[in-house]
């Protein structure tokens, strides 16, 4: 026959979260984790002189007349190492709370009849296991009522206080109190893994319990486990309400941008360095992580000026977050921004994997992607977003599905900002014969390649994957159509016009098969 381990006594914090003490006002509690082994109903101050350690003392009748009687009871409770003194609210004044603090004696104020209260408390204290079971049921009810991550973590922190609780995803605190994830002397960490809807590990709930308090750790772990379904539900809920959340996230990102010192979306050309800008607490409520090193991704339509329909946003969100549910996707004007936050700036493996997974979707919807560099904090995120956007503009040259990294873009980023449509109209006026020619794409492609290669026919032919004579013929044809390549005064202008026309017409500036 197996012998059950006797249940550990309840703590003050557990009692304070359970009826009938749940309604008590805490005048002072120095150590919520003090155990309570018995309940004493003291009718006289003299009775307090006989209480045993770890008792909760309820004062009533003569002992609860306040003033001297409460002061004396607090002193005697302190002498006897009691866990707490409970008195009717009208009895205690500010000086009583001050004395409780001086003596480091917990003082609780109640409205209910102390005799009824003592009966209820005694029931809990003598049967801690059933009290804990009742509490778990109540916690489960509270958790089930929560529809947001913040709400779930709020309940956990409320129920387990003073133990801090946090949701950690990818090594970063996503919701809850950061103190939970911090290594501190005198605390042990309780960790409960949380899986995503696909069954893969998504994050973990972390609580920092006082070191050595095994029962506290056990209770904390039990409550954290209760929260897992609510967390998943909250996560799913946020996904279902994508329309509302998209607008919410858009506004939040705009606010984040403003707080980082950038007044408007267009202003991201020159992000200001403001490394002292802290991540606002509300950002974690959205599931965003911005406190570490951030690297942004910009997803843009293949052609400038295309609208961003809501339906496409929903589709992209589903595809983009399939593997990375914690990476946000925020609508930004004519594109979408996403980012991920980590501790190691050089680690781009997860991003490369996501980009590869997303490639088919990008091609199908004629999208291009730009990737910014990794920068620190909120201002760094804004800088990375600006870089990613530039890189995405450059990626348009390469057609749908293209991905460009800002590290590899360099000065060519400037070309991405040329007003291609306006320049094409200029070309129609300046070079009408060329624009009207049936072989205009081949001619412009060849002339652009030659100009790009510094006039070298051989390198241009190599780049285009055609014979040198073909290049020569096409360049000659260009001269005949009005491209005065030999005139130094016109060469830069012609180079820019050819770039604009090639972009406009979708002319390939490289060969179909890259040279070995």
């Amino acid at each position, binding site marked *: 026959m197996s012998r059950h381990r006797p249940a550990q006594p309840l703590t003050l914090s557990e009692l304070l979260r359970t009826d009938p003490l749940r309604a008590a006002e805490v005048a002072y509690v120095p150590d919520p984790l003090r155990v309570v082994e018995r309940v004493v109903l003291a009718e006289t101050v003299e009775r307090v002189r006989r209480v045993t350690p770890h008792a909760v003392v309820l004062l009533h009748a*003569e002992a609860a007349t*306040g*003033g*001297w*009687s409460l*002061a*004396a009871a607090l002193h005697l409770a302190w002498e006897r190492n009691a866990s707490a003194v409970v008195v009717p609210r009208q009895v205690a004044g500010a*000086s009583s709370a*001050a004395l409780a603090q*001086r003596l480091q004696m917990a003082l609780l104020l109640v409205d209910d009849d102390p005799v009824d209260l003592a009966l209820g408390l005694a029931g809990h204290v003598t049967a801690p296991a059933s009290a804990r079971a009742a509490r778990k049921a109540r916690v489960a009810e509270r958790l089930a009522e929560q529809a947001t991550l913040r709400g779930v973590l709020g309940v956990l922190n409320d129920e387990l206080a003073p133990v801090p609780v946090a949701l950690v995803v990818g090594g970063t605190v996503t919701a809850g109190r950061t103190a939970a994830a911090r290594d501190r002397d005198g605390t042990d960490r309780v960790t409960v893994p949380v899986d995503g809807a696909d069954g893969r590990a998504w994050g973990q709930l972390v609580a920092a319990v006082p070191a050595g308090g095994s029962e506290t750790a056990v209770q904390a772990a039990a409550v954290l486990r209760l929260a897992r379904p609510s967390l998943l539900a909250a996560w799913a809920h946020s996904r279902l309400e994508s329309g509302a959340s998209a607008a919410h996230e858009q506004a939040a990102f705009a606010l984040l941008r403003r707080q980082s010192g950038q007044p408007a979306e267009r202003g991201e050309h020159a992000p200001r360095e403001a490394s002292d800008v802290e991540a606002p607490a509300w950002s974690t409520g959205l599931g965003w992580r911005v406190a570490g090193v951030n690297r942004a991704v910009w997803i843009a339509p293949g052609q400038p000026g295309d609208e961003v329909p809501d339906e496409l946003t929903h589709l992209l969100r589903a595809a983009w977050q399939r593997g990375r549910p914690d990476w946000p996707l925020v609508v930004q004007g004519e594109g979408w921004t996403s980012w991920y936050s980590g501790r190691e700036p050089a680690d781009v493996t997860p991003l490369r994997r996501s980009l590869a997974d997303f490639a088919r979707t990008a091609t199908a919807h004629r999208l291009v992607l730009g990737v910014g560099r990794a920068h620190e904090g909120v201002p760094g995120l804004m800088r990375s977003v600006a870089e990613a956007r530039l890189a995405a503009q450059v990626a348009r040259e390469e057609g749908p599905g293209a991905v460009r990294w800002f590290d590899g873009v360099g000065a060519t980023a400037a070309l991405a900002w040329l007003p291609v449509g306006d320049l094409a109209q200029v070309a129609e006026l300046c070079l009408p014969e060329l624009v009207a020619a049936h072989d205009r794409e081949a001619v412009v492609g060849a002339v652009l390649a030659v100009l790009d290669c510094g006039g070298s026919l051989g390198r241009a032919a190599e780049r285009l994957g055609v014979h040198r004579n073909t290049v020569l013929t096409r360049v000659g044809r260009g001269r005949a159509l009005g491209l005065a390549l030999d005139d130094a005064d016109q060469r830069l202008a012609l180079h820019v016009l050819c770039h604009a026309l090639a972009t406009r017409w979708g002319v390939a500036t490289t060969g179909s098969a890259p040279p070995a």
Partner: protein
Amino acid sequence: MSGVDPDGSIRAEDVTALYEGAKFYSPAVGDASRTWLTSWVAELLDRNGPVALVRPEALPPSTTAISLCIIGSGFALADLPPAGDEFALAVERVARLQRTRFEAVYPLAAATVSSFAPVIAAAQLGVPLVDADGMGRTYALIHHTTMHLAGVAPTPLVAQGPTGESVLVDVLTAPRADRVLRANVDTLGGWAALAAYPTTVGTLRHAALTGTMSRLLEVGRVLLGGNDADLLEQRLGAVTGCRRIGRGRITGLEHLSRPTDVTIPTHPSSVVVDEVDGRRRQLRIELRSEVVAVLADGELVAAAPDVVNLVDVSRAELATLDSLEPGDLVDVLVSPAGDLWYSPEALAMVGPHSHGITLDHPGRR
């Protein structure tokens, strides 16, 4: 006792010191009656000559003596000052009843304005004032005396009111006297001159606390000469044996901190003082018509019958209980009462339990 002069006397110039000393032994005394009372008594002593203050041992044991005090409300006394003959009349009415003549008077309580009553009577009747009293401080009820503890009856007693009316009280048991008397005081004018405990000086030698009037005068002189709180307390300690419990700032005045009963008048309240040095304890001073207990961090450190005073540190003078304000810096002093008051019977009568504080006197634990 320090300052005792067997052949001493109380002169007009001693009246101010008498008033100050009376405050020490009853800190609830306000200054409402100060001006007219001291002026009147000083004038009386000037006119009738000094009152002889004589220790009981210096008088024949058979000398008849009766105690005097003022009973009732201090505010009523201020509103309706004495006609002047109340004290002598009260003595004479008891004398007439007992077919005797009182050859000496003594204070029922050498404290409060009551300490002036026997001085006035002695001056008017031309009899000596016995340097002894029944309380050595003040208590709320008239049977809270060492005479009562020694078996001396308070009755027959006479309360002579300021409107010329008087009440003669004779009861079977001493505690009834106060009950019967108080029911009549309002009708008499709110206060009355009380003559009680008719006895002999021989009895007083063992039934009263001796030297208490001369001590009162000495304390008054010390208080009048003080301009530094520390020095003042040092001198008071030499005269009264008082010691400082702590120095602190008043942080709160609380009322009705314990249930009232009908036997002892005035409402209970508390003064909370946070010590500014030392252990920085929280001192809770429980008040009734006097300071009845002092708790330091909830531990009872002084209680009736101890005499507890507050000294206003910045002014180096006694702080009366009706003048306390949050923020005041005060010293809490405790002086022992007469030894007779620490017997179990006496403590049962005037100790903390009698004020609803169900803690044992710190001297008994």
